[in-house]
């Protein structure tokens, strides 16, 4: 595989894309996990399929359509559910399937042969083009810069929104930023693992990091590193045994998640028995 990396641009792009996606998974994953927006993010990812279909129908780059639908549904969920009359969960469910339905409709209306949608649904890291790397980099940079520059405010908002609001902080502004950053991140992740599997990459690395660290900074940084590791090993496995890369990354990640979970349980137990020994001595 090492030789292939030097030899083939597609392998270099794959690794670069994995790195970008991991940065997004760490930052956006932390936001999504702490704000309990996992299912909403799933909804946004699926709603973007409508935009992708729209791109095919009108013959423009599908990912821009996807981005437009993703941001639209994200802002729609955040605004409409604000007054509490419609539950975010309900609206998420509706947009989730509505987006998918629109996508299918637009694609079936598209003249000519039916385009292959599997790369959008399941991701295809080995077919990432230079132009995709370009827009992925831009989105990742926007996300990272905003998060790093306003880290302190984000931390307050993520930790205790009520408290932040009570200090007079402009929480609404942060909310808007978050609801724009999430769809940007999702579009980056779609290229790697596809619409259906984005939630996994947003939740698994952060969940592993949270089992090991107890400060927000450590969790964000370590989940970027963990995600990079998971993606690269996943790609390597898929390269050698020739199965789809997105699925490979997610299955391997889930496996590592459970290993870490068992490890932390064992660690707690050994500490406990150690304490007992200590007391009985």
């Amino acid at each position, binding site marked *: 595989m090492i030789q292939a990396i030097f030899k083939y641009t597609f392998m270099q792009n794959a690794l670069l894309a994995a790195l970008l996606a991991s940065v997004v998974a760490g930052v956006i994953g932390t936001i999504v996990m702490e704000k309990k927006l996992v299912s909403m993010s799933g909804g946004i990812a699926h709603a973007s399929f409508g935009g992708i279909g729209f791109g095919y129908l009108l013959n423009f780059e599908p990912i821009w359509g996807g981005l437009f639908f993703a941001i639209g549904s994200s802002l729609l969920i955040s605004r409409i559910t604000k007054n509490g009359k419609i539950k975010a969960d309900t609206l998420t469910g509706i947009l989730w399937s509505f987006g998918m339905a629109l996508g299918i409709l637009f694609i079936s209306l598209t003249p000519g042969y039916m385009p292959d949608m599997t790369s959008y649904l399941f991701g295809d890291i080995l077919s990432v083009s230079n132009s995709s790397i370009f827009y992925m980099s831009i989105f990742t940079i926007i996300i990272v810069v905003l998060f790093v520059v306003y880290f302190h405010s984000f931390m307050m908002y993520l930790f205790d*929104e009520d408290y932040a609001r009570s200090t007079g*902080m402009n929480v609404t502004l942060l909310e808007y930023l978050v609801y724009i950053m999430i769809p940007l991140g999702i579009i980056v992740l779609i290229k790697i693992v596809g619409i259906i599997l984005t939630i996994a990459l947003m939740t698994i690395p952060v969940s592993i990091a*949270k089992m090991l660290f107890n400060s927000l900074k450590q969790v964000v940084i370590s989940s970027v590193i963990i995600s990079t590791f998971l993606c690269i090993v996943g790609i390597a496995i898929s390269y050698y045994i020739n199965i789809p890369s997105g699925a490979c990354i997610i299955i391997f990640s889930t496996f590592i998640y459970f290993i870490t979970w068992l490890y932390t349980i064992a660690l707690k137990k050994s500490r406990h028995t150690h304490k007992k020994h200590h007391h009985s001595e």
Partner: protein
Amino acid sequence: MIEKISYKDVRYCYGDVCAVHEATFDFPKNAITALIGPNGGGKSTIVKLLVGLLKPDHGHVKKFEGATIGYVPQATTFDRAFPATIYDLVLMGTKDNKITPFKRYTKRDKEKACEAIKRLSLNGLENRSINQLSLGQLKRGLIARAIASNANILVLDEPDESLDIESSKNLYKILVTLKKDTTIIIVSHHVAEILEVADYALYVMEHVKFYNEPKQLQEILLNDGIFTL
């Protein structure tokens, strides 16, 4: 210049159910005012209207000039699995509310946080994750965060809820030392204990009644058999 926080004709309803009806009263400055009353009577609503988490349907809440609020909510407003230590928690209180780029904690902020931690007798626990604290310790952590913010209004929503009587009394002692430059508003169910230390009391049961003498309220409640000492 007003030297108090005043509620004028304030009404707030959750749908058809009104928690606060046309309430008019004041919280005097630099004193401890206790909010007493049954569950669901509207105490938390009054407090939330003050800190700005709710906006009144009618009437208004006016604060004195230069008022800054330190709010200690009932512990459940955040997720305890959040990756933060008690030191992180208190440190968060030291910064102002502006969303400015590259905010960093200064040496002074860190000192302020340590000071607040000490005042609430949390020293030694600084690096413990908030997930591993008892509920009582967490409450003290939240009060430390509010104190670290240099707020001149401290709003405490049942800070003694999970504390035993002894720890509650210690907490009240700390509050008494703060009141010379802080307006303290405290919701509590430890009626007898809080009325001992409060300067003023507010009985909230749909309607609001203000008592200049907490003792007076205590006697009324005793006579009505609402609580026993």
